[in-house]
Every structure is written in C-alpha cells, then in structure tokens.
C-alpha cells in the first residue's frame, strides 16, 4: 500500500508542519509582552501565556484552575453572562479593566477580546496590556494641563495657541478683561480679526502672512482692538510660529493690554513735543553744551541770532565758534571750573557772543546745570536774551537824560553863579566885571528859556494831531525871525541875507511857523563862523518854499538821516538838547508840508520847507 503510505506520510508531514506552526505560535504568545488568555463560557481560564503568569504572580498550573473573576475584580460573576453575550454578538471588543496579582496589587489593563467558536466549543481569547504607565503619564499630563490652565487663567494677559490660520486651539488668560468677550466666544469661532481696529488691520495682516510663511519667526507688535463695549484698547502682542519639518504649523503668543502705558507714553510724547516746539518758537536763544563745551542743543532762534543755518552749530565747540576771541579764554576757564565743581555756576550774567559775520551781540544769560540720573554734571543749559538793542536803547535813554539835564543845569548854574557874583560885586563896590556877568546872566536866562520852551513845545506837539490855522503872512514871519537873529549871527561874524518879497499868505499857525524858521536859523547861526546864512521864499501856484542855507560846518552823512529824531544832536560839542529839528519836522507835518535837507560836510547845509498855501 504504497499509496496509503504516501498519503500517511503526507499527512504526517502536514501534521508536523502544523505542529511547527503551532509551536511557533505558542512560543510567540508565550514570549509576548502582553498577557494572553483563553477563557471558556464559564469564565474558566483554559490557557495562559508566560507573561500573564509573570504579571499576575501565579504559576501556570494555579492560573489554569482559576476564573476571570479571580484575577479581574471588574468582571464579577453576575456581569459575566452579559459580557459573554455581548462579545458573542460583536465578535471582538477593547475594554479597560483592572487586573489583580496574587499579592493583591491591582493595575489597569487594556484588554482586547475576541470570540472564537472552534470545533463547536466557544472560547474567549484575550490580550491584556498593562497600561498603568500610560495611565500615569496621562494623569500627569492632565494634572499638568490643569495646573497650566489655572496658571494661565490667573495671569494678566491672553496666552494662546492657534493653528497657522489663526484659529485658536488654546485661548487662556484674562480674555474677558481685555476684550469684553468670553473666551468661549473665540473658541467657538469669533474671529480675532473682527475686533482689530480697522486702521491697524493692514499691518496685522502683513505680520500674519509673515508668520505663516517664514519658519521660526517671532513678531512683536502694538495695535488697537475695539472691545465689546466699543472702547478702544491698545494691545501688545508677541507671536512665534512653531514649525514641523521646517514649515510653520502653529502659532503661540501672548497679548497684553498696554492702553495705560500708551496713554502715558502719548502724554510724555506730547509733553516732549510741546517742549521742543517751545524751544523752537522761543524768542530766546536756548543752548545746551556738554562738559567739553560741545553744543548739544541750540534752538532755531539761537541759530538765527548767531547767523547760522538751522542745526549748523550742533556738535561745534561753543567757545571757539560763538564767543569773541578776547573773551574766549576767560569764559572757558570759568566754565571748566564750574564743570569740575570748583566754582558755582553763575546763574545770570550779560556776555557778548560773536555771530557768523563776526559782529557782537550782548546776551543776558540764565544758566543751569544739566545732570545725569546719578547727579553728575554733564553740561549746562542756558537761555539767553538778546539785549543788544535794549542796551543800546538804555544807553541812549541815559545819554538823553544826561544831555537834557546838562543842557538845563548848565545855564541855570551860570545864572546862579553870575547873580551871586553880581551881588558880591555890588556889595563890595567893585563893578569892573559887572557887564560880563550881566551878559552871562542874560544869555543863560535866554538859553534856559529856549531849552525849556523847546521841551514843552515838543511835548505838546508830540500829542497834537491838529492845530489852529489862520491866515499867516509867511514873508513877515521870516522878516521878524531874521531881524531877531541878526545880532546872534553877528557874534559869530555871520551875515544873514533875506531879500524881502511881497506878501505871501498861507493858511497856518503863525507861532509854530515862527518857531520852525527860528530853529533853522538858530542852527545855522550855531554852526557857521565867518559865513553867510541866506533865507529865501519861493511862491508857486499852490505852495510856498522856505529855504535856509548856510556856509557852516555841514552835517556828516551818517548823521543826516537821524537829524529829525528827537534828542539827536548834529554836533556833540554844540549846546542844546537836540530837539530843534524834530520840532521843525513836527510843525511841517502838522502843516502837511515837507522838509528836506542837503548838506556837504565842511561846506554848508540847506533846509527846504515846502508848505501848501491852503487858501
């Protein structure tokens, strides 16, 4: 029966192969790191692997006498029938349960169970995995998350994690305080874009695009949002992208409300702007220099005053650039001593400065130290007022006052002296010098009278807008004055020439016109020696022109344009307070006429008055 033998042989071989497979399966099951159980309908353990024995602490023989209920406190006897039915129906399931060791220690397991019907017998084939480690880790993670959440919730600000499109997966912190919305509203889909201030939206969009494109990027920005209640708040946001495979995947970031800070910054900024503006418009020169004398600040007017373009002097040495040479060393030395603390800073003083074109200006300075936070002197800040003009005016005023008092007091003192002398001489009977003193007395009384009159006249004319006018015969006015001055002119060996014309009537004020003509002739008589004073009168259709011309010392060109100003004296050595010509000008103005002067120094002067006849 070779055929049978062959068949048997084949079957044996097949059996052997099956046995090999079985052994291999048995081995792999035994060596598996999962507990493996075969359980029957009554929950009895039929087969078990080595790992299950190891984990549960029983020997295989022990376990094979036990039921599921002995090792799994969850699957009690009363639960088992239902479990079996469920499994039969579903064929397989994964459940979490607890295994209990021989020593009574319990550990969590994840069991995957399969229902098996083999040769009419029903089995429950189960793999159990110890998940205590995993559970632990999960618990820790859960705890950590809880902690983290509490931590975030208690922080001021918003902390988020979002996907690359900006949809938040985590959104924590004082969301409501900052935005007025509940954080759930954002999680549920309220877009952050919606609350960004429209004016800041464009910039924000740019930064998002950057975060979505460039890996490992961090963006820092300040922008406004509109709160639920409509209030505008300033936020500071820092966002960083988290990459996977060098591609941005998530965004994490934080948001803080910086509205208060911004307000303060704005206020400070405004204050600074105001201060800078003040510096710019300040009429004063404002300069700050460091300890080396370098200009660190000089305002617009300072530059202008010194004749430089704006900012031109910043960084230059103050002393070498802006002080007159002769002052430099001394001022530098004082400054150095102040900087070294050897000398107290002089708070006010007047000092000259030198402009770009080399001219000088007098500045009244007010100074203070500039100090750093620790109190070290780092320079000076000075505000200066240009008092050049003021000083000139002050000087002019005091000169006028001095001249006026001199001109009034001199004749007065001579009158007093002459009178006293005359009295003595009369008393002593020595009358030899009497005539001279009488002449002094007479002359100075006239002079004093003239000066006082001119001051009063000027004072009166200064405030006069209109005058009483009547018919005046200019011709006889001039004749009268000329006759009066013939003697005066003769003292300096001068001749007065006036060719008397026929009547010439104009509308005017006779007394004022007399004063005007006599002032001109008086001047000519004063400044002419051994010469000629010619007076003439020219009548045209609507005007008359009076000319007073002399062959005197003339008026210097530089003086000529000022001679009609009050208290300007043509010659410092002359007597009088310098009101004569300003009175003439005023009188001519009141007659709506014109006064002109021509003069050649050393040759003579000519005054021409043109008046409307007005009749």
């Amino acid at each position, binding site marked *: 029966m070779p055929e049978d033998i062959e068949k048997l042989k084949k079957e044996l071989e097949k059996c052997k192969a099956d046995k090999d497979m079985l052994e291999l399966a048995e081995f792999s099951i035994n060596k598996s790191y999962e507990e493996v159980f075969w359980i029957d309908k009554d929950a009895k353990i039929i087969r078990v692997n080595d790992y299950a024995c190891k984990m549960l602490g029983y020997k295989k023989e022990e376990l094979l006498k036990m039921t599921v209920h002995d090792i799994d406190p969850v699957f009690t006897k009363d639960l088992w029938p239902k479990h079996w039915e469920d499994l039969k129906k579903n064929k397989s399931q994964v459940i979490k349960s607890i295994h209990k060791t021989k020593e009574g220690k319990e550990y969590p397991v994840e069991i995957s169970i399969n229902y098996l019907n083999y040769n009419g017998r029903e089995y429950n084939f189960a793999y159990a995995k110890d998940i205590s480690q995993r559970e632990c880790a999960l618990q820790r993670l859960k705890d950590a998350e809880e902690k983290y959440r509490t931590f975030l919730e208690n922080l001021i600000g918003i902390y988020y994690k979002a996907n690359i499109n900006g949809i938040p997966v985590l959104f924590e912190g004082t969301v409501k305080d900052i935005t007025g919305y509940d954080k759930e509203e954002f999680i549920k889909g309220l877009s952050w874009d919606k609350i960004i201030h429209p004016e800041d939206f464009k910039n924000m969009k740019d930064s998002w695009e950057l975060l979505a494109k460039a890996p490992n990027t961090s963006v820092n920005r300040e922008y406004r949002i509109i709160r639920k209640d409509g209030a505008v708040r300033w936020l500071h946001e820092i966002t960083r992208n988290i990459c996977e495979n060098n591609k941005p995947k998530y965004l994490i970031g934080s948001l803080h409300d910086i509205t208060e800070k911004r307000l303060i910054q704005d206020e400070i900024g405004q204050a600074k702007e105001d201060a800078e503006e003040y510096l710019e418009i300040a009429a004063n020169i404002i300069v700050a220099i460091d300890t080396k004398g370098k200009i660190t600040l000089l305002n617009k007017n300072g530059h202008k005053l010194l004749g430089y373009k704006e900012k031109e002097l910043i960084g230059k040495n103050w002393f070498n650039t802006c002080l007159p040479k002769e002052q430099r060393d001394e001022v530098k030395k004082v400054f150095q001593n102040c900087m070294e603390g050897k000398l107290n800073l002089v708070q006010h003083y007047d000092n000259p400065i030198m402009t770009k074109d080399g001219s000088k200006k007098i500045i009244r300075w007010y100074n203070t130290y500039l100090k750093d936070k620790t109190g070290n002197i780092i320079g000076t800040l000075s505000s200066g007022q240009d008092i050049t003009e003021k000083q000139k005016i002050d000087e002019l005023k005091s000169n006028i006052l001095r001249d006026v*008092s001199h001109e009034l007091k001199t004749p007065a003192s*001579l009158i007093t002296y002459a009178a006293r002398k005359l009295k003595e001489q009369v008393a002593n009977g020595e009358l030899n010098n009497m005539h001279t003193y009488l002449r*002094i007395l007479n002359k100075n009384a006239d002079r004093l009278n003239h000066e006082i009159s001119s001051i009063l006249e000027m004072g009166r004319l200064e405030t006069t807008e209109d005058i009483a006018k009547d018919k005046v015969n200019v011709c006889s006015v001039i004749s009268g004055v000329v006759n009066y001055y013939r003697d005066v002119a003769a003292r300096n060996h001068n001749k007065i020439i006036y060719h008397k014309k026929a009547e010439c009537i104009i509308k005017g004020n006779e007394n004022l016109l007399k004063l005007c003509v006599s002032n001109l002739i008086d001047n000519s008589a004063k400044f002419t020696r051994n010469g000629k004073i010619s007076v003439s009168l020219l009548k045209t259709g609507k005007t008359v022109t009076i000319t007073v011309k002399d062959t005197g010392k003339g008026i210097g060109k530089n003086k000529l344009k000022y001679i009609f100003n009050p208290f300007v004296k043509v010659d410092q*050595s002359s007597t009088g307070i310098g009101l004569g010509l300003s009175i003439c000008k005023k009188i001519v103005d009141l007659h709506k006429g014109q006064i002109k002067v021509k003069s050649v120094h050393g040759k003579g002067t000519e005054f021409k008055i043109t008046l409307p006849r007005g009749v």
Partner: protein
Amino acid sequence: MAKKTILVVEDEEDMQYIYQDLLAKKYHLIVVNNAEHAALKLKQEKIDLMLLDIILPDKTGDEFFKEIKQKKKFKKLPVIIISVLGDMMDELKRTDPDVVCMQKPFDDKVLLGKIDELLK
C-alpha cells in the same frame, strides 16, 4: 615863587571866563575845550592841577579821568572834577572814593580852598 599851572578843561565859554576871572591872578591857567587838547597839554606842559568838566565834546570827563589815572605819570596829578551833573560825580566817587568832585555852581571860596589844599 613861580605860579602853579592849572589846566582847565571846559567847553562852556562862560565858564572859561569865570575860571579866568577867579584864578588867573593867582595861577597860570591853560584853558582847553576838549579832552584831546587836554591830553596834548598834559604831555607838553608841566601841569600842577587839572579842573575837569564832565560833559566834553569828544568824550566824557570821567572816561578821560580814568584814562589819565592809568598812566603812571599822572597818578599823582591832582584833579578836581567839576560838573552840573551830581549823579555822574556820585557814580565816579563810588568807583574811586579818592576822586575830588565839585558841583556847579560852586562857591568860589570852597573851590579856591580845595585848589590850595591839593597844591600843597
């Protein structure tokens, strides 16, 4: 004994006459109108005393006074400043207490006494 020389710096004609009348018998007078001529005379002549007006055509007498007092040669020269301007003389006295001033109109005896005193 030769007459002492007094330099009178005075631009006022009438005052010049008064000085002549008062002093010419006893002293040798040189009269000038302005500071420039005064400086010239101080250089040329031996001057024992100077009478100086304050308001002069070319400069103020106090300026001129300060100028000549800076020169070693004139440090000891007696000077009487005579003016109608009391406040200017006060100002001068504040800066130099030794300066001798006299206000116009002066008393003849007082001026003569002062001159005598300074020439001794």
